[in-house]
Each structure stands twice: as structure tokens, then as C-alpha cells.
């Protein structure tokens, strides 16, 4: 593509735009104010013919920067999809005519709205370059799998089957993980009636037979540096030997450990050998090898009680607040161990809610009942181990009475604890400039405490050594729509480290994680972004001469994508970057930019809006809206023909986190009367697709007050909101509210 800037503006007259707006004038605006090389109108721009017209201009070398004044950037995407040119869209339909009444009084302000959007699109176009990707990393198909349990092995096998070599790093001396300790697994196939083989041996055999899979036993990851497509990973064995691997993407399958039953003193786990955990029972069942299961003292077990939710689903100190999900079916399976060997053994499962979901779960529950396993809805208060046998004291919730029964053995369903590394954000690392040395020290200490656990990945990242946690130590992800999106690009957790799960789910999860690893490998090689801006070739670069090494960008990046070099300058890692622009928003000296999204590409749009004289009584309200949620909501408000103020000028942003305060100060200085920021919900149930972007923006805006004071402007002129994609009426309302506010407090004095 020619470097010369050739801006061509195309105005669509369809969908009523032609009837409502003076398109001739829009063309003039584009060429005169917007400095477009030419401007054309068309009755039906998205038609085959209209598109052909544009393509012809491109082919003829007439233009390489397109400005399309038509519908919303979210509409007709396929039609306006041109290669090797930049595209700016002026939203004349959803953004102008659909939100304004078709009246004579409204006509003038509506036209002004449209003119501004054309100016803005031209300004954006002028400051946009065509992104090409950095080519920072090659195609590296190697996948590192941390953990050699059923999850890790499955991930490796599935990746290998698709042609991607896998390297399994297993801490212990053999593969198999927790599953290898199991006697049998819960039924995974119809009719879901009998315990099944764990398949661990088969998996190990498959791994060993697979030429594309390399296994490192007794090994840990001692250093991970680089980025997707070019990870450099040090593997160290107990012997001290270190291997370096060049890796494309990583699957963390570090699994789970058993909850420490010693904390359950009320259940006498610490007092009696006859109170065991589920995992310990598996060992006993294996030892019995089909024969009667014996207690440690050699006595054959003739009666066994299973205590569900032991130390789980409880807010008691040291207990697990969550449900481990797998224990109900696991206990049913274990009761079957006894029943299948000798139907005469009494097996009682004491549960509160029996959680055997799905098709298989309920069948397996019924199968347990058929075999004579007894289910008692109850809460176990204590277990008395003073006698030869155990006495279980419980409250029968159905008969509503306290009872006690004796048993040879008690099995505690104690659940899973994820094997996560330390949470980088256990203590917030963002420290204000003005934080005292003591505060910083305190925070640092607290951080040390919080990260007492061993690291799994030893990431050589500015923001900590491991995957961030979401809750209860499970690794973070937007776990409904995009469950694999951790906050470290190219590193995907799978299995019980991500959420409590059984082995069947873990296998599915492992396959999914392998898919994501492969996808990231392919994207990185193209220099394309991963979710949610998948395919985006733009990446952040910075002017080193301007940089003050303030570290804001390296600290605030939600994905820990940016490192610091020895001098404290940021080191960008394209393939770790999600292209949200939070770094750009963070930079006080505005040296960070993307080819097609920069301080200028937005700033100039703001500057190019026509600001009428104060006495014209035509205020200007700047709306910076998240492109994924707030902007669609505004589109839908337009579809529903909701009206909002003709004085609003809406600029979609990748994420509110990318909003640099300079845009606001510039806007206010140049006479805007109000500014609205619309981002996504933040906090635990964050909806921000860049996790922290919206939160950062709110944090920064909380500081804007000072700026306003220095300009002695009213605080109400700037408002920041959490807006959901469903806030269709609300978004329009927020704009109108600001218009009212401005009317109340008067026009900005800064109009020149």
C-alpha cells in the first residue's frame, strides 16, 4: 500500500439518510474540513454496486484511507470489508437520524451532528495507519503442559493428534496424578451404572507411545520468559539438571490436592485410623484388590458411613466455602466398592444436597440405590472414636431428630484444593505515586506473605510469577462466555486448578485448553491478537525518547504483557498483548500508541468537532463509549427510535481503560460542556472484557476532579458510568441527563 495518504469519503443516502441530511453538504465537509481527497454519495452504498464502486477506486489507487458515512460500524461489516486500506465509519444512521426527530426545528442540529461525525471520521482516518503486526515471533508449534495427571496427559495427546508437539512437565516421579491413586472412576458411559477403569494406564501408554510427546518427570518449571510463540522455558530436575525449551503456548494442568482433613477435629480424623478421606479409601480399595476392604487394624469393614461436604460448603474458619462438585458421585462409587464385593456391607451416605447432575449423574445415583446404598439427608455433628467402632452423631433432616449410629469406617468427602501458584494480585500492586515508603513496604511485605506457595510457572513477568486467581485460589477467567481467557495470554489452565471438577470434565477441559493453546500459537505467528480482539494486527509501540520510566503501563496492563528493561523502560510483548490500550490510557506522557488506535486518532476526532460560540446555546457533550457494550446499547437505542441530545458526540473506544485523561482535558479546554465515560461493570463480577480496563478508568477519573478544579469547572461536567449492553434506554437517558446538567450549570467558558 502506498505510504501517501489518500482519503476517500463515501456518503450513503440509503435508509433515509439522504432524505434527512444534506449529503452534498456532508461531501463538502469531508473535503473542505476533513481534507478528504474526494467525497462521493451513493443511494445504496452497501449494495454490490456501491461496494464495487469503492473497490474500483481502491484498485485504481484513488484511495487507501476510506471514510464511510453510513450506518453503524457494527452494521454491514461484511459489505464494507476491504483489504489493505484503513476504514473509518461515520455513524449517520444509528448515530444521527435514528436518534433525532424528523422535524424542521431539529433539522439544523441534526445536520451539524452528521457534519461532525464526518469530520471526526476524517480526523481518525488521517491519524490511522494500516496495522501489519510486528512479526516478533515465528510459528512455534510446541506446547508446554505443566502437570502429568489425567488433564495434562489428555491435553498433550489431543494437541499431538492435531500435529502439535507437547512437552509434559511432571513434578513427581510418574505420570497419572491423582487419578493414578484411584481404584476406579465414576461411570462415564451409558447406562452410567458401574464404576469404570480410570483409563490412566491407557493414557500413560498413549503418551509414551506418542513420538510428538516428550515427558519430563521429577521436573519443575524454574523459569518462563518471553511470550506466546517464543516462550523460553527452563525445566529443572531434582538432580539439578536444567533443560531449556522453546515453546509456543502453555497449558497449566497443575491439578488439585486433597483438603487437609486434620482441620476437621469434630470428625476425629486426627484421632482415629478408621476415619479416612476419599483418597485414602481409594488406596484401601486398591489394596483389597477385589477382596473385602479392610481397616488399618485388619478388620473387615462391614459398615461404612460417608460424610459428604466434610469441611466444604461452610463458612467456618479453615473450611472450603465452595462445593467440590465431584464428591457425591465419588462417594456413591466408593459405596459400590463395598456393595459389589459384598452386598451385606451397610453403606450409608450422609448428605445435605445430593449433587449428581446431568444425564449420567442421576443414573449413577439410582444405580447406587439399586445396589442398596442408603442415602440419609442429614448433618453430621460429631464422630466419636473412643470405642472400638465409630459412633456417628447426626441430625436426620427428614425425621427431624438427632440420631447416632455406629460404623466400622467413616469416609470424609473433603473435596479439592487447587494447585495454583501465588496470586500476583493477592495484594493490589498498583500503588499511588504519593504512597509513602512505609505503605509501599507494608504492601510488599503483605505480598510476600500472600505468595507463600511455590510458583508453578515462575513467569519472568513484571506482574508476578503465576496466573492470577479469581476466587478461592482458582485461576481467573471470564468463566461464563470465555472460560479459557486467563489473564496471561497463551497460558491456559485446565482441570481442577481452574474450577472444582471430576475427571470426565477435566478431560473435556484439557481438550479445550489444548485448542486454545493451538489457536494462540497460530495467532501469534500471524502477529494477531487473541480474544477478545481476535485477529487484530495492531500492537502497541512507544517513543522511547518521550518515556519517563514511570512504570504505569507495566503496572496497569491487565494482562501483565509489559516487562521493564534494566533502565525501567517498558518492553512490549506483542503476543502477550490483548490490544485493549490500557497502557495507552495509562501513559502520562502519551508515548504509547497503536497504528490504528492512538492518542491522536481519538484526540483528533475530539478536536475536530465544531464547537459553536457560547451564545449559540449549542453545547457539546463528548461520550467515550466501550465499543463492545455501551456502543451497541446506543445503537439499539437508535433501533428503538429513542431520542437523545443532538449535542452529543460519541466516540467508541476499545476499552475505557484506553482512555487517556489528556482527551478529557483537551476536550474541556476546547470548550466541551460535558464528558461522559461509559464502560463495563468492574469488580468481582466484572464484565469488562479486558478485566481491569473499566476499573482503571474509574480509578483515573476519580482523580480528574483536581483537573476540573484547576480549570475551575464544575465536577458534574464529567461523569463515569458502568453501562451494560442491555442498558438501551439508560444510555440514551444518561446523555440527556448530561444535557440537562449542562443547561443547569451553564455553558463551558472555554469556547474560543
Amino acid at each position, binding site marked *: 500500500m502506498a505510504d501517501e495518504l489518500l482519503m476517500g469519503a463515501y456518503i450513503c443516502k440509503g435508509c433515509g439518510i439522504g432524505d434527512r441530511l444534506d449529503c452534498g453538504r456532508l461531501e463538502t465537509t469531508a473535503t473542505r474540513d476533513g481534507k478528504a481527497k474526494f467525497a462521493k454519495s451513493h443511494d445504496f452504498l452497501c449494495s454490490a454496486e456501491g461496494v464495487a464502486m469503492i473497490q474500483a477506486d481502491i484498485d485504481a489507487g484513488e484511495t487507501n484511507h476510506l471514510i464511510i458515512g453510513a450506518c453503524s460500524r457494527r452494521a454491514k461489516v461484511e459489505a464494507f470489508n476491504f483489504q489493505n486500506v484503513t476504514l473509518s465509519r461515520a455513524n449517520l444512521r444509528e448515530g444521527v437520524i435514528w436518534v433525532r426527530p424528523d422535524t424542521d426545528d431539529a433539522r439544523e442540529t441534526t445536520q451539524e451532528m452528521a457534519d461532525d461525525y464526518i469530520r471526526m471520521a476524517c480526523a481518525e482516518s488521517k491519524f490511522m495507519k494500516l496495522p501489519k503486526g510486528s512479526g516478533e515471533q515465528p510459528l512455534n508449534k510446541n506446547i508446554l503442559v505443566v502437570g502429568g495427571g489425567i488433564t495434562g496427559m489428555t491435553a498433550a495427546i489431543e494437541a499431538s493428534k492435531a500435529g502439535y508437539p507437547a512437552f509434559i512437565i511432571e513434578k513427581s516421579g510418574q505420570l497419572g496424578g491423582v487419578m493414578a491413586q484411584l481404584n476406579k472412576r465414576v461411570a462415564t458411559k451409558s447406562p452410567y451404572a458401574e464404576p469404570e477403569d480410570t483409563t490412566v494406564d491407557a493414557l500413560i501408554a498413549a503418551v509414551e507411545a506418542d513420538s510428538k510427546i516428550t515427558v519430563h518427570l521429577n521436573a519443575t518449571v524454574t523459569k518462563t520468559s518471553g511470550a506466546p510463540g517464543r516462550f523460553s522455558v527452563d525445566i529443572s530436575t531434582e538432580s539439578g539438571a536444567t533443560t531449556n525449551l522453546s515453546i509456543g503456548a502453555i497449558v497449566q494442568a497443575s491439578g488439585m490436592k486433597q483438603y487437609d482433613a486434620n482441620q476437621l477435629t469434630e470428625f476425629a480424623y486426627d484421632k482415629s485410623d478408621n476415619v479416612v478421606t476419599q483418597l485414602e479409601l481409594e488406596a484401601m480399595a486398591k489394596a483389597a484388590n477385589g477382596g473385602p476392604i479392610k481397616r488399618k487394624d485388619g478388620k473387615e469393614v462391614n459398615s461404612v458411613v460417608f460424610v459428604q461436604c466434610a469441611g466444604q460448603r461452610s463458612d467456618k474458619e479453615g473450611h472450603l466455602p465452595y462445593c467440590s462438585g465431584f464428591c457425591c458421585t465419588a462417594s456413591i462409587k466408593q459405596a459400590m466398592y463395598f456393595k459389589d464385593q459384598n452386598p451385606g456391607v*451397610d453403606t450409608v451416605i450422609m448428605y445435605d444436597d*445430593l449433587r449428581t447432575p446431568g444425564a449420567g449423574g442421576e443414573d449413577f*445415583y*439410582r444405580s447406587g*440405590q*439399586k445396589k*442398596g446404598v*442408603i*442415602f*440419609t*439427608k442429614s448433618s453430621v455433628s460429631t464422630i466419636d472414636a473412643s470405642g472400638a467402632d465409630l459412633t456417628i452423631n447426626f441430625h*436426620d433432616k*427428614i*425425621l427431624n431428630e438427632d*440420631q447416632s449410629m455406629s460404623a466400622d469406617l467413616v469416609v470424609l468427602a473433603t473435596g479439592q484444593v487447587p494447585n495454583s501458584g501465588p496470586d500476583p494480585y493477592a495484594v493490589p500492586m498498583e500503588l499511588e505515586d504519593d504512597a509513602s515508603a512505609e505503605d509501599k513496604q507494608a504492601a510488599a511485605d503483605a505480598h510476600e506473605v500472600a505468595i507463600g506457595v511455590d510458583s508453578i510457572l515462575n513467569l519472568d513477568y513484571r506482574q508476578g510469577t503465576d496466573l492470577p486467581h479469581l476466587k478461592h485460589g482458582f485461576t481467573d477467567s471470564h468463566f461464563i462466555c470465555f472460560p479459557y481467557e486467563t489473564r496471561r495470554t497463551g497460558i491456559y489452565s485446565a482441570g481442577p486448578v481452574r474450577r472444582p471438577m471430576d475427571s470426565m470434565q477435566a478431560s473435556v477441559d484439557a481438550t479445550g485448553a489444548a485448542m486454545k493453546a493451538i489457536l494462540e500459537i497460530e495467532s501469534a505467528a500471524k502477529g494477531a491478537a487473541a480474544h477478545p480482539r481476535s485477529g487484530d494486527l495492531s500492537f502497541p509501540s512507544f517513543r522511547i525518547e518521550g518515556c519517563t520510566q514511570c512504570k504505569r503501563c507495566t503496572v496497569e496492563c491487565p494482562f501483565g504483557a509489559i516487562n521493564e528493561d534494566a533502565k525501567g523502560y517498558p518492553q512490549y510483548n506483542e503476543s502477550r498483548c490483548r490490544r485493549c490500550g490500557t497502557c495507552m490510557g495509562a501513559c502520562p506522557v502519551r508515548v504509547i500508541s497503536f497504528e490504528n488506535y492512538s492518542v491522536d486518532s481519538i484526540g483528533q476526532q475530539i478536536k475536530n468537532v465544531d464547537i459553536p460560540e457560547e451564545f449559540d446555546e449549542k453545547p457539546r457533550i463528548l461520550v467515550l463509549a466501550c465499543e463492545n457494550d455501551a456502543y451497541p446499547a446506543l445503537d439499539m437505542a437508535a433501533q428503538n427510535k429513542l431520542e437523545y441530545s443532538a449535542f452529543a458526540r460519541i466516540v467508541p473506544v476499545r476499552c475505557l481503560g484506553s482512555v487517556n485523561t489528556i482527551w478529557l482535558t483537551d476536550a474541556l479546554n476546547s470548550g466541551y460542556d460535558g464528558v461522559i465515560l461509559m464502560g463495563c461493570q468492574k469488580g468481582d463480577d466484572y464484565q469488562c472484557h479486558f478485566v481491569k480496563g473499566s476499573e482503571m478508568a474509574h480509578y483515573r477519573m476519580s482523580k480528574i476532579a483536581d483537573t476540573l478544579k484547576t480549570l475551575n469547572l464544575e465536577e458534574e461536567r464529567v461523569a463515569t458510568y458502568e453501562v451494560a449492553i442491555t442498558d438501551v434506554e439508560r444510555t440514551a437517558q444518561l446523555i440527556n441527563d448530561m444535557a440537562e446538567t449542562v443547561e443547569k450549570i451553564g455553558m463551558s467558558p472555554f469556547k474560543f
Partner: protein
Amino acid sequence: MSNLNNQMVNKYRNDFLKEVEANVEEGDWVKMCMQCGVCAGSCPMGPYWDHPPQEIFMMIRAGKREEVLSSTSMWMCTSCYNCIARCPRELPITHIMHGLAHYGKRLGIAPKNQPTLKFSQKFWENLMTNGRVNELKLGITLYFIDGFVQGIKNALAASGIGLGMFKAKRLDPMEILGGHSVKDKSGLKAMIKKAQEIEEARISGNQ
């Protein structure tokens, strides 16, 4: 009979569920209950049950032998089959209730003077005499079930009914002289006797 009861106590020790599975009609199903309570809520006589079926199943699992077998609850069953129709686990609850009632009676620990127990017993005896039910005799025996005086009261209270039925030719006074009957009484009796022997053997045969 109650020595059979003792035999059973000794035989099954504390495992009442096993006893029920072995000796009670359809008792095998008890373990399949998931305590949803739909049966309890569906019973037209519900309010009169000390323990609704689902609770009885839980009591069986909890080994509450005496409480269950001597309960009046099962005798409240009207055989309307609502419970069976609605049970999500297809338990034949009606039959289990009949079975428990019968088993309690067989062991001699069913509640004394339970009216339905008596009626049920009379009904059986009545049909055993001729192989068919003689409604008049059944009626009369029932009126005197609680003794002569009460019987007269009952009879008087019901006389209107008897009269109405008589007028409607639906109560035949001639029945008192024998009335309907199967021809092959002996065959029928022999058959029932045999059936009873087999059942006895099955239950005490478990000894």
C-alpha cells in the same frame, strides 16, 4: 404369631430394611425412594397419616421397626394410586403400604382395634366363605364389629342407607340365606390354603 415376630427380630437384628425387602410386598423398592415427598402430598387421606409413605421409607432405613409396623398410617390407604402415578422413581407405594400393613398384622404387632384392619379382615373372611363377597352379611358383621350395642346404633344410623339400597334392589335380604357363591368352593379354598402355605414358608423359611 408374635413368636414369628421374635424370630424376625432375631433374624434381622437392626436391619429392618433387609427384613422389609425380604418379607414385605414390593419391599424391594423402598431403597429407591429419594425423599421428594410427592407421595405424601398426593394422598387424599394425607392429613390422617402419622407418617406419610416417604417418611415411612426413611424410618425403615433408620430401623424404626416397631414404630412402622404398629403404625396406623398404612391402614389409611384408600388405594387411590395417586402416589404411584406421581412417584418420580416408580415405587409401587400403594402395594408397599398394603404389604407393610399385612406384615404388621401377620407379626401380630399391627395396631389393635384399627377399624380398617378389622374391615379388611372381615372382608377377606367374608369372601373366603363363598368365594364371593356377600354385601349384606359383610354389612351386618361390620355393624356389629364393635359389639352389639354399638352395632345397633350403627345399624340404625345406616338403616336409611340400607332401606334406600333395598328399595333400589341393590341390597338383597335373601342374601342372608347364603346368596352368591362359587361352585368349586373346595378348589378355591385349597388354592388359597396352598398360596398361604407358600407365603408362610417364604417368610419363616428365611429362618
